[in-house]
């Protein structure tokens, strides 16, 4: 992990590079985090690659409900040579949940961006094949959002297609 000072140095380098990509830095429990603008994610990851963080260990989504902007996308970067990790986090609103895709530079993001899209409805612009990955194709809604209800939906088998609540209303 870069220590708190190292994180500030990194953030300052990014700020010096021009655009206001970095919104904030967080250092919590020994883990360094850069909060960045959604549009700047590919540039920030490319910058971090130059610093040695050349392995995208994980990409996942978070719903910060009821805070705004609600949806978060996290990128866990890893530097295998110096054994160092840093997180890059970005937040988007549910009305325009658009984050540029990083699949072109980081092919490992392919399935993981699809999962975030599936579960949270974050649209990754430029993703080559953005569709649901874990839920059925015709599923409505994004189940990992915090306002998506738990339960209430029967598991569909051939023997109980008619047991769903209110099936008779659904013509």
């Amino acid at each position: 992990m870069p220590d708190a000072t190292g994180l500030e140095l990194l953030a300052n380098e990014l700020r010096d590079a021009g655009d206001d990509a970095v919104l904030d830095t967080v250092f919590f429990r020994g883990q360094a985090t850069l909060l960045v603008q959604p549009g700047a994610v590919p540039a920030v990851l490319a910058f971090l690659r130059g610093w040695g963080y050349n392995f995208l260990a994980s990409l996942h989504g978070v719903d910060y409900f009821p805070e705004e902007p609600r949806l978060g996308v996290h990128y866990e970067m890893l530097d295998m040579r110096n054994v160092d990790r840093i997180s890059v986090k970005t937040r988007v609103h549910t009305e325009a949940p658009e984050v540029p895709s990083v699949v072109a530079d980081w092919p490992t993001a392919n399935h993981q961006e699809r999962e975030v899209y599936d579960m949270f409805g974050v649209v990754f612009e430029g993703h080559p094949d953005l569709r649901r990955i874990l839920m059925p194709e015709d599923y409505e809604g994004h189940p990992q959002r915090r306002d998506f209800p738990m339960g209430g939906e029967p598991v569909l088998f051939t023997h109980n297609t008619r047991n769903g609540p209110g099936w008779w209303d659904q013509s």
Partner: protein
Amino acid sequence: MTDLDAITRDVPYREREASIDISAFESQEGQEELLTLNFGPHHPATHGVLRLLTVLEGEVIRDIKPIIGYVHTGIEKTCEDKAYWKVIPVVERMDYLAYYFNAMAYCSAVEQLIGLEVPKRAQYLRVIHLELNRIMSHLVWLGTSCLDLGAISMFWYCFRDRESVLDLFEMSSGQRMHPRYIQVGGVFEDIPVGWADRVRRFCEEMPTRVDQYAALLDKNEIVVQRLRDVAVVPESTLLKLGVTGPLLRASGNPWDLRKAQPYSSYEDFAFQIPVGTIGDNYDRFRVRMQEMKESVKIIAQALDGLPEGPYITDDRKYALPPRHELATSMEALIHHFKLVTEGFRVPPGEVYAPIESPRGELGCFVRSDGSAKPARVHMRDPSFVNLQAIKVMCTDTYIADFIATLAMLDPVLGGIDR
């Protein structure tokens, strides 16, 4: 609410998966006619409910698309509705061959959020169980892979040894699978009398067994023909695809979190990281075989150096008080009541805790909003990420080698779909 009847009756099955792109499957100039072959999801050699759309030109695979989600059970969503300590048995069911690892990743994330110190004895007990679990997982891999190659007796041998590991689990925790042994702050219980001796006996036996299996398989003509120089993927491609674990080590990159970022006292033990040379299926096979022997070394050292002391933290805000205190101490009773009813609260924050599972980097992300339930639990499951490598591994190889390659990839669908 989805229209249940419409799903089952009105929409034809094909149209429900209309978005699966098979445009790449048109024959190119100079190619023979392409054949699209559906493989799975119910196929014994896919090691779970994995579906693969393959495009064949004659006997050669030209494209392959994994389709997953058939055993998606929403475990991550379920976790958000449970108190922190009740999440442990839920996450254990993700990667069902590496249940200690799932619990370990989750518990270390929560411990980091709290800033909780784990006693040394608990760390050693965790290491012993994790490494036993690694051996068990690799034994299932070895048995089923050999079954895919047509060697039925290896399957029986491996499951015989797996059984002895499961017996050890049963003795120490009462359960053979999903034992809920690792707790936030330590482990569930100290090891029972006689357990250490049985583990020692296992540690003496296991390297011999691995040698026997190696003698059966290493120079076996069928194994060598099926595995050597098949599905070679260079290290750089694997790194781009985010592949970790034995697959990456087989290509010569000695990345192992137990060495690189030691957790749970792994720095106390002397062991080696087996690596391959060219990254073909044979390397993958040999790396895992050797890893079993290295795990035995770790277990033996941990048993020898097992420190005395508590097996779980004595911070009563997070760990249950001992049973005998409940009869005499009001404070213990209150702590017990609070922990069992509401659970404990965790300070707000976000933590990503990676560990080395039998299949690679198993990272657990936990976000706490200050309440007694996690606001988000995400598992970066190595099988899920590694599965993306199936396309590079299998393209332009024979369909006959494909099953062996899939076996060497070692996907666990419970972990992929979660």
